[in-house]
Structures are given as C-alpha cells and as structure tokens.
C-alpha cells in the first residue's frame, strides 16, 4: 500500500470577507519531503501555511495529515512545529526556557529528560552554551536557530517555516539555508517552507510550488520549475527569462516561429498539444543560453546597458520594443546578434 501523503490540501479555498485569498488549491507533500511555496507577496503562500498550521480555517476544502482530516483542529493538537518570519521568541524566557516550552505539553521524543532534549537541540542548531541568554541578546541568525530548536523540541511530525530568513542579510541567509536543509535531512522531517526568494526555493527544496494570485501555477522539482516553466508567470518569476511570442510557420524536427523581423527554430515541447501551422505560441530563452555572434537562430538587438557581476556580465538589450537580458563572458556594445540552440528554447504555450 502506498503511504499516505504527510500533508494533503484538497480544493482549499480561503476568503476574508469578500477578498479571495486562496482559490481552490490542491497539493500533496510526501513524508520527509522538503516542499517550498514560492511566490510574490500577497500571493497566498503564507495563508496556505497558516491553514496547515491551524491558525486559520479554510472556507472550503480539506486539509489532511497522513490521510487524517485535521480541519477544525486547533494548532496545539496538530503536531506541527512553526518558525515565523520574526522568530516570535518569548522575550520573557531564556533560550533554554524557550526551547523547553513545548515540552510542557508533550513528552520529548526518544527516552530522554526535558533537560537532555534541550541540550540535544542546542547541539543540533550549534548553540551549546547559550542556554541562559535572553533572546534580546542574540543576533538575528542565532534567534532564527533558537526558533528552529524550539519548534523541533517536541518532535513534531511536520515543520512549517514562514520566510524564516527574510530578516537576515544575504550571506547569512545562504549559510543558514544550508543548515536548515542539513537539519531537515538529518531528522527526515516533512517540511513546508514559504519564501518569496526564488533562488532560495530552488536551492533548498525537493519540490517547489509556485503560487500566484491565490492559485498554484506549477509544482515540480527545482529543475523542472527552472527548465520547463509551464506558465509565463513561472518563466518570469523563477530566474531571469526572455519571453518571445510568434506565429508557427513550419513544422519539422523543430518548430519554426516567425517573430516578425526574425524567424527562429525551437525544439517541440512533448507536454503540450500537437502544434499546428498558423498557431500563435510563446517560448522563453534563459539569459545564459544566448550565444553572442551565433548565426543560427539569431536575433539582432541593441545593447542598452551592462552590469559587471565579476564572473559574468549582465547585458540589458532592446529588441524592437522588447527588453532582453543576456549573460555574457565579456561586455558588449552597440548592435549585436544573439543566437540560441533550439533545445534551449522552452515552449510555454501555444494558442
């Protein structure tokens, strides 16, 4: 028998008065999976997390943990650990009192005392020796790790992380996300992570759900999300991308598309309908997939500005009225021709 998903949302809608926050979303998170909800602010990703945590109740639809309907259960009965954006450490308790708080309500996992459990967790998040500190005396990264330890102390089935690193600086964020991933894999705990940072989402997750405007645009592995965006929104939100629109003029091993000035060949997408000559279609090319001066599939564009990034140069170009982005090894200037391999073009839609 296939195991039940650890968390499953089915047709969940959430309305606040007349405002629609979630428009019937469904997804399933497998046991021990690191699942990330990524999207712009106000898209509904945090609302989704709050529904899983039991802080909000869905207007309709069901939330199930391991096949068990948890709708209506208050947060304290859900067996979830939560880390909030601002950590929400109890300011009137020390570090160890914060971590031990959840042990008031359940036995620590394994055959250990509460004190031993607190030590284990301090060890896990690398804060041994900080037991008696006040939360106010900690740095942002330390607070974040205490919040993590506190959430994990009672041994929850599910860990929910709500933008836990958005208040930290970029370098610390990169280090901490490795720590979070390591801890998650060590414990094998089912984790739902919410972020607006697509790079973070790709780096840390087993699977990613791109959320937009109260609905899910696409669910997939980071590679699928990056390489095969299913919608224009995903294409543009995840990483930098160049979206082209044109009319199909010929069908071959490749699809020939008339862009107006230029005509290019793109590889057919096996996931979409059989293309027909005369259909309009949309595809995208990543900035790093442009090859400067390549003859095949080339378009002529004008360089507007260039940013030196160290290892690469980011070039902003204008092509007709459209802005394009390219990553090149050397700075460019004036009129250039950019080419790409048909296989590097990814068809988003045809209509």
């Amino acid at each position, binding site marked *: 028998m296939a195991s039940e998903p650890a968390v499953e949302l089915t047709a969940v809608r959430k309305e606040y008065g007349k405002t629609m926050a979630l428009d019937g979303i469904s997804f399933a998170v497998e046991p021990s999976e690191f699942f990330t909800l990524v999207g712009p602010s106000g898209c509904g990703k945090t609302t989704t997390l709050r529904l899983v*945590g039991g802080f909000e109740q869905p207007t309709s639809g069901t939330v199930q943990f391991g096949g068990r309907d948890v709708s209506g259960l*208050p*947060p*304290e009965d859900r067996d979830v650990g*939560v880390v909030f954006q*601002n950590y929400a450490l109890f300011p009137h308790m020390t570090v160890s009192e914060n971590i031990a708080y959840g042990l008031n309500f*359940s036995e620590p996992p394994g055959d250990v005392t509460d004190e031993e459990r607190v030590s284990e967790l301090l060890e896990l998040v690398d804060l041994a020796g900080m037991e008696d500190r006040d939360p106010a005396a900690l740095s942002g990264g330390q607070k974040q790790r205490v919040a993590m330890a506190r959430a994990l102390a009672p041994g929850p089935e599910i860990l929910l992380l709500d933008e836990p690193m958005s208040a930290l600086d970029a370098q610390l964020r990169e280090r901490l996300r490795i720590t979070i991933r390591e801890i998650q894999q060590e414990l094998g705990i089912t984790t739902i992570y919410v972020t607006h940072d697509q790079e973070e989402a790709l780096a840390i997750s087993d699977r990613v759900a791109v959320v937009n405007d109260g609905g899910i645009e696409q669910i997939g592995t980071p590679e699928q999300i990056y390489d095969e965006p299913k919608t224009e929104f995903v294409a543009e939100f995840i990483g930098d991308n160049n979206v082209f629109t044109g009319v199909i003029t010929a069908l071959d091993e490749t699809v020939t598309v008339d862009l107006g000035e230029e005509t290019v060949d793109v590889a057919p997408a096996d996931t979409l309908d059989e293309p027909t000559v005369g259909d309009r279609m949309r595809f995208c090319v990543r900035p790093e997939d442009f090859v400067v001066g390549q003859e095949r599939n080339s378009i002529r564009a004008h360089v507007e500005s260039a940013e030196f990034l160290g290892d690469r140069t980011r070039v902003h170009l204008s092509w007709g009225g459209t802005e394009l982005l390219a990553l090149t090894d050397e700075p460019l200037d004036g009129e250039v021709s950019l080419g790409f391999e048909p296989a590097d073009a990814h068809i988003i839609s045809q209509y």
Partner: protein
Amino acid sequence: MSSARSERTVRDRIERRILAIFGLSTVLLLLGMFYYPVGTVFIEAIVVDGSATISVFLDILRDPFYFGETARLFAGESPGWDLFRPGRELGLVEFTAWQAVLSTLASLALGLPLAYLLARFEFRGRRTLRSLTILPFVLPSIMVAVGFVATFGSNGTVNDVLGLFGLGSINMTGTLKIIILAHAFYNAPLVARIVAASWETVDASAVETARSLGAGPLRAFWDVVAPQLYPAVLMSAALTFVFTFGTFPIVLALGDLSLATVEVWVNRLIGRFNYAEAAGLAIIELAISLSVLYAYLRYEAKQSNQARGVRPLPRKSLRPASRSPRELLPRIGLGVYSLIALVVFVAPIVSMIYASLTGPTGFTLDHFQFLIERQTGGADFQIQPWPAIRNSLVFGFATLLVALPMGVTVAVLTTRKYRGRKLVDVVTMAPLAVSGIIVGLGLLRGLVFGVEIAGYRIFVGGAIAIIAAHAVAGYPFVVRTVAPGLEKLDPQLLESARSLGASRARALLDVELPLVWPGVVAGAAFAFAISIGEFSATIILAEGANQYTMPIAIERFIGRRLGPATAMGVVLLFVTSLSFVVIERIGGEHSGL
C-alpha cells in the same frame, strides 16, 4: 509521538474551556451587576402602578423646579425671551448643565497651558509630571472636597496667607466657585493628557513647511497645529462636561442645597423613598450625558483620519534661548500658570494634611485623638473610624478579585478580531458612561430588596451589592490598561505557543500575561483605588446597614466639623497611597519574569 498529545485528561479539558468559562461568567456578572440594575431603574421610571407610562418623565420635564423656564417649552407654552433673560431662576437640571459648562471652561483654562507645557517643553521631571496627571482620577472625590474646604473655606489656608499680608478674607464654602475649582482639579489634568498626547503627534515637517511658505510662528500654530488639536480639545471638553454634569460627592460636600445638582437630588429623592421620580431624573441625566457623548462621537467620525507625523515637534528648553519677547513671553506665562496650578492642585492636599494637624492653638493631634475616642467610646449609631477603614479595605480587595479577571477576560475578548467585536466593546465599556448612582439605585431596588425568580425570592446583601457596584465601576480601567499591551503583542508569539501545544488559556497565562504584566498591575491599582474612593453607589447601598466606607465617614464628619474630616481624609490618603505602593511592589517582582 502524537499519542502523548491525544491522551487528554479532565484537567486538560477544563483548561481548554477556561476562557469560555471566564467569558461566560463575565457576561453573567455584567448582566447581574450592571444591565439588570440599570434596567430596574428604567422600569422603575416607566412602570407606575403596573402600567407603562412616560408621565414620570413628562412631569419632570414640565416642572419649573427642574427645568425653569425651559419647562414651559416642554409644557407646550412659549417662554419667549424669558428663556434668555439674564439672571433668571434656573431649574435644577438647567443649573446642573450650567455649572458643568462653567466647570468645562475652567478645566480647559487650567488644562490647556499644562498640555502646552507637557507637549512642547523638555525639563527635569516632565515624565513624572505627566504620570502625576493620572492621579486625580484615583483620588477619592470626597477627600478632595475636604481639601478644598481646608484651602478655600473661611478658616482655610488661603485666608491664613491673605491674613498674613493683611488682605482681608474670602469664604468660598458653599459657593459655585469652589465647586467649579474642585471640578477643574479633577478634569484639567484629563484635558492636559488628551491634548498633550494629540499635540505630540503633530508632524514637525508640516509646521516647517508652513514656515518655509512664509507663515510666522503664531500663524503656523493657528493654521497647522491648532486644527490638529481641535478634536482632542473637543473630546476632553465633552468628557469633562459629562463628568461634571454627573457630579455628586463634590457638590454634596462643598455646596448647600441651593447648589444641588441632579445626582444630589436623586440621592435626596431616594432618601425620601420617592424611587420613581429618582429613577426618572437619573434616566434623564443619563440621556443628556449620552447625547453629548454621541454628538461628540458623530463629530469624531466625520474627521478624516489625518496622517500622523512620524517626526514630532522638538521640545524646547524651559530656559529661554534669548531675551526676545518671543522667547520670554510663553515662559513667563507658564510661570504664572504654575503658581495658579500650585494653588489649585497641590494646596488642597497639603492644606488637608495641615488642617488635620492644627487647631486654634497651633499644632495638635486633637483631630486624630477624636477619631480614636470615637472608636473606643462612641455610640453605636455614630460613625466609627475603624469599621470604615476595614470595610473600605475588604471591599477594595473583593473588588480586585472580581474586577481583575473580568477586566483581563474582556481585554482578551476585545483585542481579537472578529465580527461583532465593536458591539462587545460598547457593551462592556458602557459602565464607564453610567453613573454609580444609577447602578446603586438599581441594585438597591432590585437584588437588595429582593427579586422573585421562578417562585424563589433572591436577596443579595448590601455588602455584595457594594462590591458588585465597585467592580462594575473599576473593571473598565483594567480593560483600558491591559488591552493596549495585548494589542501591541506580536500575534505570532501566541501562535508559536499554540503550535508548541499550549491551549489558548495556557498561552495567555504563559506568554501574554507575563508580557503585559505592568498593565495588569496598573489596572489592579486603578480598580482598588476606584473601590476605595467610590461614593455614589456606596452611599445608596450602605444606608442603614453597617457597611459605610471611609468616603462615607468623611461625608458624615464634614457636615459637622472639618477637623475630624481632614484627619479621616489623611487616613484615606494614606491607605490609598499605601495600596498603590504595595500593588506596585508585587508587580515589580513579577515584571522581572
């Protein structure tokens, strides 16, 4: 792992419902101790001989004794210009409104300079002065009355000082002036608090913009600052009017019957067992007060929400920067003001203490001696000091036990967001707007005299009724001190606690209350002080029974001899201050959590 949590014990189940249980108890207490009594008063005024009628109200409205020339208006006649004839005889209700208007003006005159000082100047002790403006709220009014007699009466300190300079003498006892001054003592600090708070939110850049556009400092004040202060001034004026319209102990102690206000007369009518007329008059008073508040709220609602400044106006030093008139004049003005303020705010308290320790021959302990003699050798029918102190303390602590959980529960219920929260807000804060005399009268006529429910006659003792009235008067202060703290707490603290397994009640106890503890302590201090100083309801309910409190004792003494009244006033001042210190101390330990 989850099995540990699924095993629920009985204690657990009670814990999960504890908030609901407290909420329900609060509703029941409010119903029994506030809404039922107030309803009783209504019915008393409307049901005469078993049938509903508005004749009680009509009779009052058409009686020149109550409404003077205005009564002719209500009777359908046209009083014409008589209504505006200067010096015409005012009816009781008219007079009450008139003295409230004068008191409001006096409070504004004394309060606005203080607001200016607090909002615009930086000086040593500014914060302390600001905290002190809350003090009049909790000073028992009857004690303040004693202080005013000791200051402005024929043998008062003001006359002593005037005599020193050979400047003749004044006697303000029993005059409208002393009543208005005493009202200003209470309400000017309120005006100052409200207006200063609003002044501090005026954005400096708005003033600077006006200045850069060519407006002088005075012009910039009138054009930019003043319009932002009007709502606060109006609100404090409306509140002052309502408070002084419902004045009772101050007038009872300082004026004679020719200066009687509505509540004094209601009390007199109760003393004459004329309950219907008392109830009718009390309801008319309530209607007038509520209309003023309602008119103000309508005005406030029309005001658009101004963007509040992020950068307040910088405070100036009290030391003038130069000798220019622009620098000197405001400071000289404030200097003169502080002398007047000293006489109005400080002299009464100091004079009371002074008077309690002096007699015709100078320093004496005679007045305290008198209290002790009265205690040891007084007749049974005479007011004795010790029972008054004991009763006050017992009622005070009992009030605390009821008002604190009630206030915290209501604070929790009104800081959460849900539909109908506004209604809960209004229903639970209504006791602030209804005078103690109505609650007292309602309790007396209802539960104290006995109520028949399902064939059983239910009585509530006078002491219980007094505690109920005190708790109803005191718990809104607990709400007001606890709710702002709860409102400011990060909701994710609560959610973290819940997700870690804490029930709603447990999270309140473990996380929220420790973090708002100073507010809880302040609320407790308020509730206790309100109970210790409460007069209106107590004097109605304690009559006949052996339940008089310190304020009642003072009122009995003041009519006969000032000396013992001041001595008793000092005892009351001492007990009030002591309880504040004790509660602060208890709070101090816990706030270190």
